[in-house]
């Protein structure tokens, strides 16, 4: 198969033409449920954002199969260097929606202590889900460094580095793929080609025939896969993961998909996304695609789908309520974690801020004496 062709697994009728994903029913349903939970997360986050409860979110409609398929190819001992759109991967591996909602609210229970914008998650368990950064592409090369540490220690682990079509223009893409190929690092680069970088279409992002072909510039295999087909993504990423685990070096996977919503809850995609395109991709909905497969395996029917949808929404909505009820971080969180130890000058600034807040009467609940 050339890099121009695209691998699919699920056929229009839900068949998979003899391919055996070697997944238990429970695994298959876990994928499905996680896709539905991502969808529920989107819906709840949009609702909260429109109600002014949170500032911002990043919708995932259309790209659920790519994220869940890729996550399903990993073990818990692997690392994920995610982009801001990848929280489905965290859900898949067992991060709790409550922990995620704490981040959306930036509250005192947020693992990032309310310092980051929403969707900038960071987790160390149950899988290493590296701290998400806003600057595009910086994590692509960082992933290679993390993988180098695995190589040096001869660990059988792998790093998944995930980014968008826009991310391929970044500096981190260029240095990341180059270093990984020279070092033969155990990294799988997942380019989620959802065809838009905010309002910039792929035609303005690159003139290359595909994103997968960019692998040849670095001397690594590149492969294009149907990003709306969860089994295809899992298959391709699994193969790349296994090669990497065996010392075969990195792979670039392009998952070809489409961003059905806006870039973020602040974006109005009707300004630039052609309606016909949307209509075309509506028919390739990744959840519906997977449902056809599951239905054929008798694992799914509309009633089950409706129940899972309702359960997912309820679960995420409940998580939001927990987060909503959690207080803000204390003022000391502005000043801690700049360094491991708080230096003199930052300590003094913290003390002054705390004193002022007390004088103004707006130190957060729970703030006692300045603890740093």
């Amino acid at each position, binding site marked *: 198969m050339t890099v121009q062709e695209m691998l699919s697994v699920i056929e229009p009728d839900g068949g998979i033409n003899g391919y055996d994903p070697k997944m238990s029913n429970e695994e298959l349903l876990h994928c499905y449920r996680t896709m539905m939970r991502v969808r529920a997360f989107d819906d709840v986050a949009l609702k909260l954002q429109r109600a002014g409860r949170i500032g911002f979110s990043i919708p995932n409609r259309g790209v659920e199969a790519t994220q869940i398929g890729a996550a399903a190819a990993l073990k818990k001992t692997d690392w994920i260097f995610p982009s801001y759109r990848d929280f489905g991967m965290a859900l898949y591996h067992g991060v709790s929606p409550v922990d995620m909602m704490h981040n959306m609210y930036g509250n005192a229970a947020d693992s990032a202590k309310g*310092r980051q914008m929403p969707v900038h998650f960071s987790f160390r368990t149950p899988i290493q889900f590296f701290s998400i950064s*806003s*600057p595009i592409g910086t994590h692509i090369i960082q992933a290679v460094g993390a993988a180098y540490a695995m190589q040096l220690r001869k660990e059988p682990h792998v790093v998944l580095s995930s980014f968008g079509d826009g991310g391929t223009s*970044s500096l981190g893409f260029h240095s990341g793929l180059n270093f990984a190929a020279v070092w033969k690092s155990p990294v799988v680069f997942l380019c989620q080609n959802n065809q838009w970088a*905010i*309002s*910039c279409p792929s035609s*303005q992002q690159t003139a290359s025939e595909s994103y997968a072909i960019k692998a040849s510039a670095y001397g690594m295999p590149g492969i294009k896969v149907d990003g709306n087909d969860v089994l295809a993504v899992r298959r391709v990423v699994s193969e790349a993961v296994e090669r990497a685990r065996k010392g075969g070096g990195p792979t670039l996977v392009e998952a070809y998909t489409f961003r059905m919503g806006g870039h973020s809850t602040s974006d109005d995609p009707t300004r630039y996304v052609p309606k016909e395109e949307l209509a075309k991709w509506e028919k390739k909905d990744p959840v519906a695609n997977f449902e056809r497969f599951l239905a054929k395996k008798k694992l799914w029917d509309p009633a089950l789908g409706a129940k899972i949808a309702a359960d997912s929404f309820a679960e995420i909505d409940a998580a939001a309520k927990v987060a909503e009820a959690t207080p803000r971080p204390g003022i000391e969180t502005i000043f801690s974690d700049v360094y491991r130890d708080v230096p003199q000058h930052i300590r003094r600034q*913290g003390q002054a801020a705390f004193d002022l807040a007390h004088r*103004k009467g707006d130190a957060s609940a729970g703030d006692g004496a300045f603890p740093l």
Partner: protein
Amino acid sequence: MANLTLIQAVNDGLKVAMRTDPTVLVFGEDVGPKGGVFLATEGLTKEFGESRCFDTPLSEDGIVGAAIGMAANGLKPVCEIQFQDFIFPAFDQIVSEAAKLRYRSGGQYTAPMVIRTPYGGGIRGGLYHSQSGEAYFCHTPGLKVVIPSTPYDAKGLLLASIDDPDPVLFLEPKALYRTLKGEVPEGKYKVDLSTLRTAREGKNVTVFCYGAMVPVCMKAAEQAAEKGIECLVVDLRTLLPLDEEGVIEAAKQTGRVVVVHEAPRFCGFGGEISAIIAENAIEYMEAPIARVTGFDTPFPNTLEHHYMPDDRRVLDAIEHVWSY
């Protein structure tokens, strides 16, 4: 005269420049059909065509690097960096290249260009949509650094920047984009890139500020006035090259100085103001030179209102130097 917001003034300035000078062109991420994430470039592609206002691939290095080549070859690029926080991939092109081209080529090649970018906090942007990086650039000979604080200045300084023979970093206070309106003349006018602006007269305490801190300091100055302290509020506007004479003059007028900015304190722009005064007018000083700044930490999200200097913190400093 129209009553415009700061962002409308920027948009108007771009249109005026593109209408009067066919070499002016605008590009960056999402500046084309979408009109920019803050809509600063709205309508430009429509009016001037895709060859003069267009989207680029996601590479700030590419945006600024290409702008340098265009400028060296007779165009007048006005490129946009979507958030100032994302300018760092272009740091090498700005600091090593745009700023040094005229010098290193003995004046044979130059890079007259403008890099526009929104900076500063106040939109709950957290670490990467809130930074004020002016100090990183002000340490770079060959570059000019401009920050407007009113719609009138935004347009006039932008037009002066576009006409300038040297590279200009034009930092727009995003917190002010839509929060204040002001009279803006139609057509072309310029605000000089080498003089500060006296935002308020006063004989007791001098407050130096720029960008989004100007309204904060004005508010603090009003509160101080109620307490009988008259503040001279100076809007620096062009940080590099700085109107040093004007700064020294304004400091001498009161002998008591407060310097205000959003960026972290350590090695920030405020230190330069203090140092200039300590070097040239220390014998006029009747109190410590106080700084009110962002903290020496990254920019937090939920608690940004504690991080950013507000009128209360500025007033505290004014009272401190006044009562010293």
